[in-house]
């Protein structure tokens, strides 16, 4: 090795070294401009992409002709990159069923809907073709469509979806139903809530749970009551009475778990399928008969303009709206297209007001935040 250089005389180079090192780092970080301030925009500045051309061509086709066109193309592409916020137990079954039917490998990225949105936007801004299809919550799809990254999809299956699920850039595939649920050991069928207004009853003070992020439920119920002729004051009072003594929980899963355990008697706005799963395992919980109107949050699918595998993307979308619907039903979800006997035909269902949510979502978030945090009345508008 070497001999030790004299101790003095080592300082200067070292100093320069560190200084130039940090300068280099600053330089590296400096290039590339503003990471966050640039306004998001569609990645396709010019005309339609290759994927869009294919979509446009197939959108007009129907029935077997459409499948015959898509299947060979999709199998030639061989793969499908899917981003979804579907829970993994459902996603696994859906993907296996699709892969069994077609010779297409599905690469799955799964995360919460907010993360899926972030991921797609980040990738699109960097012109990175990460996914072909995105399947997630209505709100996030709405945002993605605003970003201009979703392509137009049409076809006979889409036209069978209810109005609320046929949005620009995306199509509903399933609904999550918000309904009150209760612990059957603590609440008898007589005591169980029959209307949404019942939740404001003082008898539930300290026994009702509300979820931290359900502002979409809040705004939809608010709008519904408004249409029913209630005044803002009356509606605010109802929510404020609900929130009085309410136990606020983050996450519907935790809410379901604590409801089974008896930490509270009633959950205001859990998803019915979570309660159904627990019930199926024998937990002392129920949500039937439904408190009406049931509030439905659509989840949907959108085709990417920049898809690397456009035929596979379209085939999967068609499939999910046809064969896939039965798979979703088997997994206990509520499908977007109901064929044959509808178990919910006598139940009044209102969809989340996606338009309002996207336009004034932040405002509603803040208001809901205030409602649950102090139970005080919120200024009506």
């Amino acid at each position, binding site marked *: 090795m070497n001999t030790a250089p004299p101790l003095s005389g080592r300082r200067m180079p070292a100093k320069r070294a560190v200084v130039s090192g940090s300068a280099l780092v600053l330089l590296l970080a400096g290039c590339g401009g503003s990471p966050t301030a640039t306004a998001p925009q569609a990645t396709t500045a010019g005309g339609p992409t290759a994927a869009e051309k294919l979509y446009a061509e197939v959108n007009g086709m129907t029935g077997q002709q459409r499948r015959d066109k898509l299947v060979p193309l999709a199998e030639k592409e061989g793969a499908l990159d899917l981003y979804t916020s579907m829970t993994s137990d459902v996603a696994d079954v859906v993907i296996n069923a699709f892969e069994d039917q077609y010779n297409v490998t599905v690469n799955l990225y799964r995360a919460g809907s907010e993360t899926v949105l972030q991921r797609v936007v980040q990738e699109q801004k960097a012109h990175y073709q990460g996914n072909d299809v995105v399947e997630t919550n209505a709100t996030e799809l709405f945002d993605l469509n605003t970003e201009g990254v979703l392509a137009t999809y049409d076809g006979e299956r889409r036209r069978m979806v209810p109005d609320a699920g046929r949005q620009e850039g995306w199509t509903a595939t399933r609904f999550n139903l918000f309904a009150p649920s209760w612990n059957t050991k603590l609440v008898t069928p007589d005591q169980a809530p029959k209307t949404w207004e019942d939740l404001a009853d003082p008898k539930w003070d300290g026994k009702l749970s509300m979820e931290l992020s359900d502002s979409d439920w809040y705004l939809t119920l608010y709008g519904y009551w408004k249409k029913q002729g209630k005044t803002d004051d009356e509606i605010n009072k109802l929510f404020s009475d609900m929130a009085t003594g309410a136990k606020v929980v983050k996450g519907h899963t935790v809410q379901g778990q604590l409801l089974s355990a008896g930490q509270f008697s009633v959950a205001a706005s859990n998803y019915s399928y979570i309660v159904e799963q627990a019930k199926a395992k024998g*937990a002392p919980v129920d949500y039937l008969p439904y408190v009406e109107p049931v509030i439905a949050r659509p989840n949907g699918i959108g085709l990417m303009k920049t898809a690397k595998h456009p035929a596979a993307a379209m085939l999967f979308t068609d499939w999910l709206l046809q064969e896939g619907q039965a798979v979703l039903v088997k997994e206990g979800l509520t499908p977007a297209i109901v064929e044959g006997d509808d178990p919910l035909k006598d139940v009044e269902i209102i969809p989340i007001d996606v338009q309002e949510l996207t336009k004034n979502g932040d405002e509603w978030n803040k208001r809901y935040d205030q409602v649950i945090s102090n139970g005080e009345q919120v200024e009506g508008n």
Partner: protein
Amino acid sequence: MTAASPAVPARKGAALGWLRRLGTPKIIIILVVAGVIGYLALVPLYYLIWGTFFDANGFTLGGFARAYGDPRVGGMIGNSLWFAVGAAVLSLCVGTALAYLNVRTDVPFKGLFFAASIIPLIIPGILYTIAWIFLASPDIGLLNKVIEPIFGPGFLDVFTVWGMVWVEGLHLSPIVFLLMVAAFRSMDPSLEESALMSGASRWQVFRRITVPLTRPAIVAAVLVMVVRSLESFEVPALLGLQNGIYVFTSRIYFVLRSYPPDLAAAGALAVGLLVLAVIGVAISNLVGRSGKTYQTVTGKGFRPRPMELGKWRPVMGGAIVLYFFLTVVGPLLVLLYTSLLKFYQAPSTEAFASMSLDNYRELFHISDATTALRNSLVLGLGSATLVMVLMAVGAWIVVRSRIPGRQLVDHFSFVPLVIPGLVLGLALSFVYLRSPVPIYGTIFILLIAYCTRYMPYGMRYAVTSMHQISAELEESAQVSGASWWQTFRRVLLPLLSPGLLAGWIYILVVSFRELSSSILLYSPGNEVLSILIFEQYENGQFTVLAALGVVMVLTLAVLVIIAYKLGAKVGLRQD
């Protein structure tokens, strides 16, 4: 390499000598390490700062208005500080006491409690918190049921700030434990022995000798704990919200939830934390800097020898058993119990009759479970090793070198602690989506994320140990002709090893839980365990989740034990 030759003409010689000196391993290593630390810290910091102060129209302070303009901000800061300081104090007391008893005394049950005191760290925060709800909720808490005949119903209430302090403090105490174990290991007991000989009582010795000597470690622990608790999300979300107790991070959650995420407001909150942290680092260096005061590992040979507790031995043994029953066995039993059920219910004959291993069986059917385990192991071992190697050199730069600007290295290494995981994920994906090197979509982007996130802990562990090692050891090695690299490798690294090992274990364990940036950055085929946990959680499979938690605790406990068995072979040995 050779030393500069004095024979060449003056000007040329100066230039050549300068180049040669610049080319020594020492300079290269220092340059690389400082560069890497700076790079890892500055990428997310730049992203955060830019997002905080600039929007489409240029410079703005709107984020601060939105972040701190909330009418409840006063109460929130009060709650946050109460919670953070409380948790920090609790974890400090518990962690230090355990470390002291373990390293410096002949307390019984050592083998048991060393591994067991790491367990709260291994259990994912969400499981640990929910386990405490099942134990100490006034409505359904099992402990409350047990003590009800004496104290009346609902005596313990975990849904209060004190409850939050308790759960968070216990969950964090292993960080302190690991730090303090390293500090006590490197302490010369002759100082305490002399005090005892001179007639000081044990308490006086602890207060006047032991604590002052480990002050750098204590300051580091307080600093990390306070910032960590200020940022903690699970405990305030699950325990605080229920009764409307809002803290700092609840705000960060709210501002990041909207779309596009309000990076400016999140950044404004993070900048608040950053200012706090920088002040803390400055104080800790000021405290640690005051010369040789804390250098307990000197040229004089010593062997840390355990102190005899005498008549206190059974008392301490009893206290430890009680502690472990409360904080480790209790939550773990709840998890184990839950993992055997179909759904959570209070213990009853019915519940016990329904028990089965179905949830464990289900674990085998989770697709990608083996891939995820492998990826987590690779990432955990990789990031722990990389971080500790980098930080060993980094700590040398900060503590030992005289390089101007060395404090920057310390500050930079601390930056990631205050950056929310989601923001880190966004920053990394922003950079690597545009990088010509294909890192995005591979496992390397996760490695970079983990190294960034855990750099602050690595640095605290390394710096703390470095403060305890006297410079005279290095000097004598160099006088004896060793190169800087030889000295570093053969003298410093072995002496630092208790601290480095502690940091390594900490990073290994917590990396298994990292979710907030992993979830944004992983790609198909690169799943990690924390993502599986998140998915089971989202699926509502709480019982399966509990089973996964139990398996994780067992896996990591085995790894930690192996690490300590190996670690005991290097560094300072005990009698």
